[in-house]
């Protein structure tokens, strides 16, 4: 790796290979940047904005910004952490996020980021949207109450599974996840539990049936350490390239 390919992230020198995003370089170097819509196996999406950093003084999403030599990147600053906290709070009030009754609790990235950032309250008025679940599929439950519109299931179904099972519909606050079937029901698609799209949801929307609460408290994925300590799980699959499995 050329010594000239480095940037500064919160006073730390981060090496990168040309083509890597700021996020990929940081994660490769073991520095966690909070994110929800980024996934190492998919092209960056830049929609959740949680990975926003300041690059040379200007806000930018680190998952979509290519690393460049000499950049000065701020991530772990009170100002940016406060903005990320607000983003998490807006997600919490926009959906119905009741962790005590969610099977994804302990495995959920939104929850883990709430803990990481010290989000103690949703702060805003809760919207309590009405979002019926889809339990039509024999193996999978869709609980739209928790959807954060990261589009990972859409990307996985389209790019990996080649099935186009999911899509977004509507605009603004009415934007929501839909199932691509005339009936709108998951049972009327060729979706399968083995699909990549069944495995990428960062929250508790796409859930395998008959497996709820299988892991006890204390042994769940994010019970042992904060999500920032799980940084190795988010490292790029193929360093230097935007992985597309």
């Amino acid at each position, binding site marked *: 790796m050329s010594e000239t390919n480095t940037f500064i992230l919160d006073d730390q020198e981060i090496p990168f290979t040309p083509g890597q995003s700021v996020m990929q370089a940081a994660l490769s170097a073991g520095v966690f940047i909070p994110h929800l819509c980024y996934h190492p196996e998919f092209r960056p999406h830049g929609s959740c904005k949680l990975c926003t950093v300041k690059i040379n003084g200007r806000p930018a999403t680190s998952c979509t910004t290519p690393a460049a030599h000499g950049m000065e990147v701020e991530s772990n600053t009170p100002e940016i952490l406060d903005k990320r906290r607000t983003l998490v709070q807006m997600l919490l009030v926009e959906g119905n996020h009741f962790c*005590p009754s*969610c099977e994804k*609790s302990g495995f959920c990235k939104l929850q883990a980021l709430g803990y990481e950032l010290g989000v103690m309250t*949703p702060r805003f008025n*809760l919207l309590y949207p009405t979002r019926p679940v889809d339990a039509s599929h024999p193996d999978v439950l869709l609980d739209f109450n928790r959807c954060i519109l990261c589009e990972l299931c859409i990307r996985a179904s389209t790019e990996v599974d080649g099935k186009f099972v999911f899509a977004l519909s509507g605009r603004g606050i009415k934007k929501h996840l839909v199932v691509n079937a005339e009936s709108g029901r998951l049972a009327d698609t060729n979706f399968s539990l083995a699909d990549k799209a069944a495995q990428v949801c960062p929250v508790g929307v796409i859930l395998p049936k008959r497996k709820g609460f299988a892991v006890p408290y204390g042994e769940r994925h994010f019970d042992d350490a904060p999500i920032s300590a799980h940084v190795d799980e988010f490292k790029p699959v193929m360093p230097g390239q935007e992985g597309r499995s």
Partner: protein
Amino acid sequence: MNAPRKLKVATTSLAGCFGCHMSLLDIDERLLELLEFIEFDRSPLTDIKHCGPCDIGIIEGGVCNAENVHVLREFRANCKILIALGACAVNGGLPAQRNHLDLRDILAAVYVTEEGLVPGTQIPNDLELPLPLNHVHPIHEVVNIDYFLPGCPPSGDAIWKFLTDLLAGHTPRLGHGLIRYD
């Protein structure tokens, strides 16, 4: 030299299950240590019915009926510091899962159309009963809240850390394992 004045603490459970109060008792023998520094005013533990001037008010549960609103406002008017304790106070929790249903439909389903009811059963309509609100609200939507401690319930250790931080005069910092939403 006089011993420092004990802080007055009031607690209540609104639309909650008293699980958070049980969790407060889960600090076990540390309760005795806590009582060196605090004394309880209105609380299910003292059975005092109304809240006097207090240093700290601890609210469990969200707001689901008119009485909850009155109690919450009494606490806000009397407490220097108000704390939302547990998931229901913080985001409405389990009771708020009725929010996407029509209140009249829920009451009718329970008291009118449910099978096995005594013939003639009606929706209770006694002046003694507080009227339910159309929706359940977290308490920060009704009064200003100073601190939030999520969890269903927050563990005894989390409550202990939270209260001892507060008594020591600094912002509570829970850290991993103590901050929990479930």
